[in-house]
């Protein structure tokens, strides 16, 4: 179901005109109101009058995550602080957080793109949305909340955690839409099994899973265990929160809401624009944002774009699910390895569940990678040699996919810590 026919199925030439106009307005606004952008544009020798068409965007400077932190808390504001009605931040686990400040119109835009997002999973005012994304400074909870409100669905603001209560509410309120991180959805499935709750008997129909990278294999796992259609949701605090891109029921790429967020794919090394279909770093510009507009934000997410019209009828560009992050990328003995690749391989091995952890270490000059995989009943054999075979089988599958040797260690069930938010998959102990 398409929430906004006008923009979501707009002819691409017409869309470019809309984007060009928004970009001109944006550049003029930030040049005038945000010293940070004015200085950067001056340094690059580009003036607002140089920006006419959307393709002129390549003349503009990039904005990095570090810069977004340096302007903490309010140096990116393009409006008076009194015009801001709500503020969110990133988690800030690695330093000062990134601030996203919204005007009333920004909240309206957010509600609109999130209504489009939920409509991609056919959510209507008849539905009951159990929103297990965290409410608070994190954008996930309130983003979904605003979208569900716009549609008129019944939203249960349960927030993250408290698994027993999640399961109780799910049964008693008959929730049919679930929103949470993919790893938490599996945690819920596990807990349900222990409580003797059968997901096939619950009305859950569709889930919007995101805020951490996940793989196609994990999708199959989630769909089988929770008996619902699992859709990938994408967003980031730096841009608006959730509502930047969303997978439709075709599950063939995530539609970017291009009238609000303009995507480019660049080579992270040379910073050159890459042609359609080539893998590179996603760069996003907020075309319509008022509070904290962002020019050419380097997301560090690796993906590629597809401009073909989707079977669902939407003409908007689709990005592939995130393949990895330029900064998540592990360089093991000179080979680039993404944790998502490892997950993909693990889940292809019969009986392996997505509970794993990667330990990277360096012994002498040599990097080592150990992958801890939880033993489960399906994988278990009372014969030592069969267990050793299983370890070897996983190691071989990993080697043929990654091109680097890794050590697989089988560990006891439930020994890898479960997360109620983003799963911590990689522990890098290398002292470089």
């Amino acid at each position, binding site marked *: 179901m398409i929430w906004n026919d006008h923009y979501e199925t707009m002819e691409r030439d017409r869309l470019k005109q809309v984007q060009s106009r928004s970009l001109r307005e944006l550049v003029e606004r930030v040049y005038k109101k945000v010293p940070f952008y004015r200085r950067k544009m001056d340094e690059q020798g580009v003036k607002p009058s140089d920006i006419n068409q959307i393709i002129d965007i390549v003349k503009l400077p990039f904005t990095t995550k570090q810069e977004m932190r340096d302007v903490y808390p309010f140096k990116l504001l393009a409006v008076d602080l009194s015009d801001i009605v709500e503020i969110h931040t990133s988690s800030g686990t690695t330093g000062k957080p990134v601030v996203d400040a919204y005007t009333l119109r920004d909240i309206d835009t957010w509600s609109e793109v999130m209504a489009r997002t939920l409509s991609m999973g056919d959510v209507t005012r008849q539905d009951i949305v159990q929103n297990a994304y965290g409410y608070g400074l994190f954008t996930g909870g309130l983003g979904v909340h605003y979208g569900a409100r716009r549609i008129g669905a019944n939203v249960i603001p349960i927030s993250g955690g408290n698994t027993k209560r999640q399961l109780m509410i799910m049964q008693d309120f008959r929730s049919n839409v679930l929103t949470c991180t993919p790893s938490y959805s599996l945690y819920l499935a596990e807990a349900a099994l222990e409580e003797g709750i059968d997901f096939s008997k619950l009305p859950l129909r569709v889930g919007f899973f995101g805020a951490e990278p996940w793989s196609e294999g994990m999708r199959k796992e989630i769909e089988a265990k929770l008996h619902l259609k699992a859709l990938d949701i994408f967003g980031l605090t730096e841009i608006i929160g959730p509502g930047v891109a969303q997978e439709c029921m075709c599950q063939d790429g995530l539609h970017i809401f291009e009238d609000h967020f303009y995507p480019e794919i660049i080579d992270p090394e040379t910073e050159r624009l890459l042609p359609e279909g080539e893998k590179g770093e996603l760069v996003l510009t907020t075309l319509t944002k008022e509070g904290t507009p962002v020019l050419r934000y380097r997301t560090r997410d690796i993906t590629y774009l597809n401009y073909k019209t989707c079977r669902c009828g939407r003409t908007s560009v689709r990005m592939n699910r995130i393949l990895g992050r330029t900064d998540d990328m592990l360089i093991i003995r000179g080979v680039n390895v993404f944790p998502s690749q490892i997950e993909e391989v693990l889940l292809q091995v019969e009986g392996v569940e997505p509970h794993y952890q990667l330990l990277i270490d360096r012994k002498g000059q040599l990097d080592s990678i150990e992958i801890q995989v939880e033993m489960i*009943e399906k994988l278990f054999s009372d014969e030592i040699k069969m267990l050793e075979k299983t370890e070897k089988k996983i190691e071989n599958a990993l080697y043929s996919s990654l091109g680097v040797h890794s050590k697989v*260690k089988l*560990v006891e069930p439930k020994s890898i810590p479960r997360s109620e938010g983003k799963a911590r998959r990689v522990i890098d102990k290398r002292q470089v």
Partner: protein
Amino acid sequence: MRYQLSIFMENRPGKLEAITKILAQNNINIRGISLASAGEFGVVKIIANESDRAYEVLKKAHFAVSKREIVIALINDTPGSLHDLLKNLSSNNINVEDCYGIVLEEGEKAAIVLEVEKFPEAERVLKANNITVMSDTEI
């Protein structure tokens, strides 16, 4: 007919204890135990007086556990007894996958635990050769 439980275990101090603790807390008696390890993990095999309940409590405590049928043969504690037993099995083309034993009464009786592929045949062969096979109630 009786069962042996196999439990996956990381090869670290305190891991075996975690298993025996659960059985003790549930008042389950261990009648036989053996342990095999390969580097960083191992498999502990336990014969318990109540194998079904032992299986359930271990599973509930999140251990990877499996159950299989085994043969417990009683033989004389004399030279050549084990050899006779094994000869009976091998001459019937029955392969022994794992085996351990202990003397019950010095110079009198010993118990041998056998994991075999062909379970009912093994029991039949042993009985036919007048070797005593322990029943559930005897454990």
